[in-house]
């Protein structure tokens, strides 16, 4: 089977986000960018399915500016066979990305699409579910275990209070949670090899998708700062403060 793995280029998770002084957006100038960590887990899972003989081909996809090529090369260094960039400098919101991915899925006809449960920049947690809806496919979000057997995907999901396991008919969409796997480090030979793997570029127009944003960001602000409190000398003072000052116990 063929697996499609959408990946997003985001601010590296170690960088602290800062709001631009005009309050319009997060300042991304000269900031380290990386693959969204949940998408890295998705690439790893797809590559493991290929190594296990379940999948024949892993295709990485990214929607965004030309710089996303770098993210796609990272996906290929982990083990994706080829990549597709849907290039656009426009702001792409989750619904637009889901539509672009739907158009690609119609062309590529994968049996499985695996992607991160959320991107760590906009924290939307929407794209996978939207894509599944547009395709009319079943979905398993927040996956912590994936088994493909007898033409079904058996997926264990992290839900409030515990775990649940679903059996999905294929084709299907799976979104990854943190504990699905630990992505490998791309080795230098694999990074070199990834440079030679095919990377096609398309545009939203070529896919016939309107990517007009539906949401307008009016303002981005820092949250109210929480001031540091005091250091207490010992447990006795802590208990005294909690009882008499904070009155919470």
């Amino acid at each position, binding site marked *: 089977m063929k697996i499609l793995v959408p990946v997003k280029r985001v601010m590296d998770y170690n960088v602290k986000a800062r709001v631009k002084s005009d309050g319009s957006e997060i300042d991304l100038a000269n900031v380290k960018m990386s693959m969204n960590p949940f998408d890295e887990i998705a690439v790893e899972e797809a590559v493991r399915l290929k190594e296990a003989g379940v999948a024949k081909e892993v295709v990485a996809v990214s929607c965004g500016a030309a710089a996303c090529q770098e993210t796609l090369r990272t996906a290929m260094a982990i083990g994706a066979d080829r990549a597709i960039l849907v290039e656009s400098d426009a702001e792409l919101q989750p619904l637009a990305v889901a539509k672009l991915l739907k158009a690609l899925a119609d062309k590529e006809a994968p049996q499985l699409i695996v992607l991160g449960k959320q991107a760590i920049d*906009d924290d939307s947690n929407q794209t996978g579910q*939207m894509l599944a809806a547009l395709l009319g496919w079943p979905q398993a979000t927040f996956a912590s275990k994936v088994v493909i057997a007898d033409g079904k995907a058996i997926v264990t999901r992290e839900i409030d*209070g515990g775990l649940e396991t679903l059996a999905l008919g294929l084709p299907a969409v799976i979104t990854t949670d943190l504990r699905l796997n630990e992505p490998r480090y791309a080795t230098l030979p694999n990074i070199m090899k990834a440079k030679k793997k095919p990377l096609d570029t398309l545009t939203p127009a070529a896919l016939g998708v309107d990517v007009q944003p539906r*949401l307008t960001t009016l303002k981005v602000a820092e949250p109210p700062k929480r001031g540091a409190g005091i250091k207490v000398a010992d*447990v006795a003072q802590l*208990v005294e403060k909690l009882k008499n000052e904070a009155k919470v116990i």
Partner: protein
Amino acid sequence: MTVLVLAEHDNAQLKPATLNAVAAALRIGGEIHVLVAGSGCQAVAAQAAAIAGVARVKLADAPHYAEFTAENQAALIVSQAAAYSHILAPSTSNGKNTLPRVAALLDVAQISDIVAVVDGDTFVRPIYAGNALATVKSADATKIVTVRTTGFDAVSATGGSASIETIASTADSGQVSLVGREIAKSERPELTAAKIVVSGGRGLGSGENYLQVLGPLADKLGAAMGASRAAVDAGFIPNDYQVGQTGKIVAPQLYIAVGISGAIQHLAGMKDSKVIVAINKDPDAPIFQVADYGLVADLFQAVPELVAAI
């Protein structure tokens, strides 16, 4: 304007997260309806009808709604959508799983995880792990919104007398079946609804220590137990204890962080707590920058002392 709120429940009990979502609906204004979709969930519909401020409960009772699959719930919500200006769900794993599917089927955007309502089109939501708050305005006819429960004080579960209307079921998608579910049973309060949370990090060293050191403190305070991602990744406790950007978001009256350094991802899940206590042996741990009361001490001594003193 009429607002539909998806009820969170387990076919027997309405979950408190529903009350926070109704609170957000009240801020939007207009008439509020609650959708109860499940199987054998008449009792839940009656509980929903008692919520203060709710005008009508729509009940869809069918076997294929029993497991709350996104496919079947989304189809049902879409069948009702034409009557509503806004469709809300709490940002629980069920709400997050289902609502984007509804949005895509209606060809509208979703506004995820709102913490404030500016007006009927404009909402505030955290981005970048809560390091920024974005104010966003929707141009869509129907607003699909998930509600961060800690952003809105729960409305009263009693005092309402909504009518209950049984609505037609949509067809079973037949695409998904439940294999099994493991829900941890605990005598302690639920993490996201608890007034006090005792949370542990990597500093505890092991799963045994986590339970032996923190368990008595949680018992004494009647607290829920939480954990940092580091503690979950180290295998001390299951992932549903995790507080943080990608775990649970909590805002209790009192949050006691024990052996937690305070990574950005963790702070994103607890910094709206009313009072934060940090116990850590490292005086430079970032957790002290948000703690109201910091105690620099060896947790293995300080926590038992604390248990004895309260």
